[in-house]
Structures are given as C-alpha cells and as structure tokens.
C-alpha cells in the first residue's frame, strides 16, 4: 500500500504540450479517478505514473520513494488496459502467472527445460499455481484457467486482466478505461465489482475514464483534466455541485448545465435574458458574469419578474419521473433546459409561456475568463479560487 505524489509534471510530444504542470497527490488506499475527454492527457499521465513513458519535467513518488527513472517493473504498480492486453498465445493461467514467474524465479529457473530441474523451482511453481488459482476463484474465473484469451468473452477477458494485475499484490492499481470495451449492461456490473475490489483490497487505485458516471460512482475523489491541465480535484459531489472552473461545470453533468451571460446590478440582482435573478451578490455592480444553472435547479414559478426566467416552451421530453423542458428565452440563442418533476408540471405544452424560478444558492457564478466566483464566509464574493484540492 502506498500513496502517490505527482509534482509539476510536464510532457511534450514534439511541439505539442500534452501535460502542463500537473500536480496531484493520492492518499494511501484512495480511489482517484482522472476524468476528461479523450486527448486531454489523462492516459499519458497514467503511463508516466507506470513508468511506460518519461515526463519532461516534474517528479513522481510512490510511497516514500521517488520513482523517476525507475523501470515499470521496479515501481510496484499494476495496470489494467482498455484493450486488456492479454497475451493471446498463453492460457489464462499463464497470463496470470507471468508477473509472478518474472519476479520469483531467477533467470536460470525460467529456462525452458533446464529450469524445472533446478532446486526450488517446483516449490515456487506450485506456490504460484496456488496463488493464481486463488485469485482466479475470487474473480469467478477459476473454471477458465486452461483457456486462451481468444476463447473468452469481453467480460471474462476483463476479469483476467484484473486478475493478472491483482495476483502480485501491487501497491498501486492503475486502470486505463478498463470498462469502455464492454457493453452497457456489463459495464454497470463490472463497475460495481471494481468498487468492491477496491474496498476488499484497500490499495490505492488510479482510474482513468472519460465516462463521468464511472467517475462519479467509483471515486473517493475525481480529478478533472482538460487540455493537459488539472482543473479540479475534489469528491464527486463537489465536482458536480461546486465546480471551480466553468469547463468543469460544463463537462460534468448530463444533460449539460445551462450557461447564461448576465450583468450584475446593485442589490444582488443580475440582469439576464430580460429578467432579474437574485444571486446574493452585493458587490461588483456592472460586472459581466456567466451564470451556470443545473437543469434540475429550476422549479416552476407562477409568475415572471424578479427571481424567475420567462420563456416559451420549444420542446418537451418525457423521461418518466422527469420532464426535460426546452425554453426559448428572449435574447439567448440556445434554449434553456429545465428538468422538472413530471407530477409538479402536468399541463405544459409547446408554444406556451413558462416561468421557471431558481434559488440563489443554486446559481453558480463564473467570471468571463471562466473562473468561479465563490462566496467566502467573511469577505463576500470577490475571491477567485485557484485550483484547489478538497479533502476526501
């Protein structure tokens, strides 16, 4: 078991900067997810962590040890790949035994025929067999040990890949989008299994995904990455409800968060789309701000005016318990999406004029350069938070 510390990692491919000053620390036994769209550098960061690629600047420690320049083998990390990366010519048992054979046997003991005759080889081999069988049984693939990867289904291969990583008890588990090759149903099932695996093993997990549902359900903390930068590291609920950066707010959440431009008036009122919303801001009058409002933060209001937005209904999507209502607002060229409880909003029809209200504390405010304008306990609004790490 070990913590992981990543300090100011930079990585370039030629002219292209893939990682820019990424710093992150992962506590011992924590499940941390690197979340971001494809091409944001999250997989590169994971490969640097594993020692498969070298950073151009910065330092990485695992446990107390600085591992820069150490070969992957010496880092005590195991990795599960998106493609599983099983060895197709070996049986499941050999796939899982290989990391143990490479570590426990001497070079002579690994020799094809001669090795078996050396003292100790048979004893170590039977130990390895036992451990492989135990791990395989724990993952429910004990009956597949004699098969080759080509004869397995996607889910079974995935388990073998996890088993191969698990069998040598690494200090840190690295997972690079391990579920993205599975079908939707299996993905949800394996998600639960990975969560249980983490709880059972209690070791540090660093998990890379572009799927926010995976990130939100699995993680102790989520690190959101975009364009080679770390935007925010926080527990899933904070990432969703309390984002530091406009890009985090936009990336997280489905359907997407509503973004509206407005100008702050005095008395904590904000002019937006022909209405005035109360936002608790009593300073910075005249400032242009961006409001971000989650679709579910809206509620039906009986009348327009202060504290409510007014628009005409463009489209309604019935989702069972909820209604997704698309509203056209005056002066805004993209529709606003409100998620309303179906039972509270029974009589909405397209073309109708609708008022939706929102509580001031559900409105997230961002400056024009995309940083969060956050209320602080004493000093009022005026602070712009840098990237911060919130505790677990």
């Amino acid at each position, binding site marked *: 078991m070990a913590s992981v510390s990543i300090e100011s990692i930079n990585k370039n491919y030629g002219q292209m900067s893939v990682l820019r000053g990424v710093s992150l620390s992962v506590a011992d036994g924590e499940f941390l997810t690197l979340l971001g769209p494809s091409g944001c550098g999250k997989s590169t960061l994971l*490969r640097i962590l*594993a*020692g*498969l690629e070298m950073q151009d600047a910065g330092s990485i420690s695992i446990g107390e040890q600085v591992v820069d320049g150490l*070969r*992957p*083998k010496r880092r005590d*990390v*195991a*990795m599960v*790949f*998106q*493609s599983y*990366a*099983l*060895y*197709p*010519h070996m049986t499941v048992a050999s796939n899982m035994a*290989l*990391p143990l054979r*490479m*570590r426990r046997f001497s070079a002579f003991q690994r020799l094809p025929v001669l090795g078996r005759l050396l003292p100790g080889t048979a004893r170590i081999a039977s130990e390895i067999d036992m451990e492989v069988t135990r791990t395989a049984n724990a993952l429910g693939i004990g009956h597949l040990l004699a098969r080759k990867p080509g004869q397995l289904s996607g889910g079974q291969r995935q388990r073998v890949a996890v088993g*191969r990583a698990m069998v040598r008890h690494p200090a840190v588990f690295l997972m690079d989008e391990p579920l993205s090759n599975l079908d939707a149903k299996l993905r949800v099932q394996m998600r639960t299994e990975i969560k249980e695996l983490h709880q059972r093993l209690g070791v540090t997990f660093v998990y890379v995904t572009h799927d926010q549902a995976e990130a939100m359900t699995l993680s102790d903390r989520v690190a959101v990455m975009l364009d080679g930068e770390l935007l925010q590291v926080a527990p899933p609920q904070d990432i969703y409800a309390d984002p530091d950066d406009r890009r985090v707010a936009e990336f997280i959440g489905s359907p997407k968060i509503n973004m509206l431009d407005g100008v702050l008036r005095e008395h904590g009122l904000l002019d937006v789309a022909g209405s005035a919303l109360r936002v608790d801001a009593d300073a910075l009058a005249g400032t242009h701000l961006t409001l971000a409002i989650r679709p579910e933060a809206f509620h039906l209001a009986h009348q327009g005016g202060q504290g409510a937005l007014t628009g005409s209904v463009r489209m309604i999507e019935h989702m069972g318990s909820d209604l997704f209502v698309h509203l056209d607002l005056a002066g805004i060229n993209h529709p606003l999406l409100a998620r309303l409880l179906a039972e509270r909003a029974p009589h909405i029809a397209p073309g109708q004029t609708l008022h939706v209200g929102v509580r001031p504390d559900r409105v997230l405010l961002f400056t024009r350069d995309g940083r969060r304008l956050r209320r602080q306990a004493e000093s009022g609004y005026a602070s712009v938070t840098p990237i911060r790490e919130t505790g677990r």
Partner: protein
Amino acid sequence: MSRATSIGRLSPPVAILRHAALLATGALILVPFVWMVSLSIKPPGEIFSTSFFLWPKQFYGVENYTRALTDAPLPRYMGNGLIVCAVILALQILFCAPCAYALAKLRFPGRDLLFGVVLIGLLLPHQVLSLPLFILGYHLGILNTYAALIFPYVVSPFGIFLFRQCFKTIPNDVVHAARLDGLSELAIVWKIMVPMALPAVIAFAIFSVVGHWNDLFWPLIAVRDQSLMPPPLGIMSFKNEEAGNDYGPLMAASTLVVLPLVIAFLAAQKWFVEGMTGGAVKQ
C-alpha cells in the same frame, strides 16, 4: 437466391472458363515436375524413345533410385543441406526478431534511417555481393567449410522487414503490459512478440529453407569439397562425374531432393498463407 450465393457463385460458363485458365497455368507449372518424376522411373531406352508415355512400359524406378542413392553420396548432400538450412534459419531468427522489435516498437534517434538501410538491403541482389563476400570469406579463412555456406545469410533484410511489419500490428499495450509484468526487452521479443507473430515466423522459415535448400549459386563459389556440398551442387557434380547422359538416376536424385520441401510445405501450408496475408484485414 440469397446474396451470398449471388456473390460467391459464378454462372456455369464463367466458372468453367475460370477453372480452365487456372488448371492450364497450374499444369504449366506442374509439367516439369511430373516429367521429372516420370523420367525417374523409366529405363534409359524409354527416356530417349520417340513415343511419349507418362508411365513407363518397363518400371525402372527401383534401379534408378538405388543408383541415385548409392552412386553419389546423396544422403550426405541432403544432410549438408539440412545442417546449413537449419543453422541459417536459427541464426536468422535470432538476429532478425530483436532487430525487427527495435524497429517496430522502440523509439530512438535514427530508427527510420536504419529501417531505410534495411529496405536498401532488401533491394540488393545477392549476386552483386558475391565477390566481396568471397574475398571476406577468404580473409576469414572459412572458405570450403560449413561456415562459408552460412555466413552471408545470417542477417536477412527480408526477415527483419517481415517481422517488423508483423510486430507493428501487435498493440503497444501488450508491450506495456509485458514491461509492467517484469519482462526485459529481450524477454518481450522471445516470450511475447515471436509467439504472437508465429504465422509470420513460419512463413519466413519456409522462404528461408526453400531458398537455401535450392541455392546453387553461392555454394558453387564457397565450397569445393564434395563432402560439404548441399543437394543442388551435389546433383550438378553427380551429373558431370557419374551419370553422364544417364538421366534416370539423375531425375531420381532430383525428385529425392525436392521431396522434403514438398512435404514440409504441405504440412505448413496453413500458416504460410496466414503469414503472407496477416494484417491485411482486421481480425
């Protein structure tokens, strides 16, 4: 009619034409072999008779094959061929696989230039190099030994090229996984890459063995001693010294020399085709 039938099957006249063309070209290639086998079982009188029969009136196979095996040291020639081909193949794979791995999967400055050099090596005909190789062999003092037959072929640009193309199709993740599992780079080559590229290795092995088993040009230059001669050179000297115009035993000897290759090819045919077309379509 289902779609598969309309695509898979041709109308009868087209099918007949196509098969006729295929059979004709097949026959053209087979005729010399059939003739060789036919001559090898005929008595001397029938070989030069004006009438032509594939099957002899008088079966003379036993005599011809006995003379082929006893008059010239044919088993010795074939043994030589076996030793030379086996050593060449083993050394070729030993050198080509790590080279190909480096060219396919490692990043280092000058890699593309080196690969270009390999491609140039692929373009050079062997005959161009025979004189420098002969002089090199002379200075090394290995002419007229097994080593002389082997050393020009130890590194095969074709092998490097073929393996490199095949290794490139193996996902990088597999190499990464192997590194994390604790394999050294050489262990990755021998435990992961070569077994995964087995069809290509077998295809290359067939090319290499056929090429060197049948090679006449270089052995003619490199060895004089009859006890070192590989089969084609042996048969040539057999023709000059022993057989003269006696084509029956000569053809019997030729048949015996070709036989191992035919058997080996038939046995490995499946992998051969796989290796040659591997990577052409996504699995």
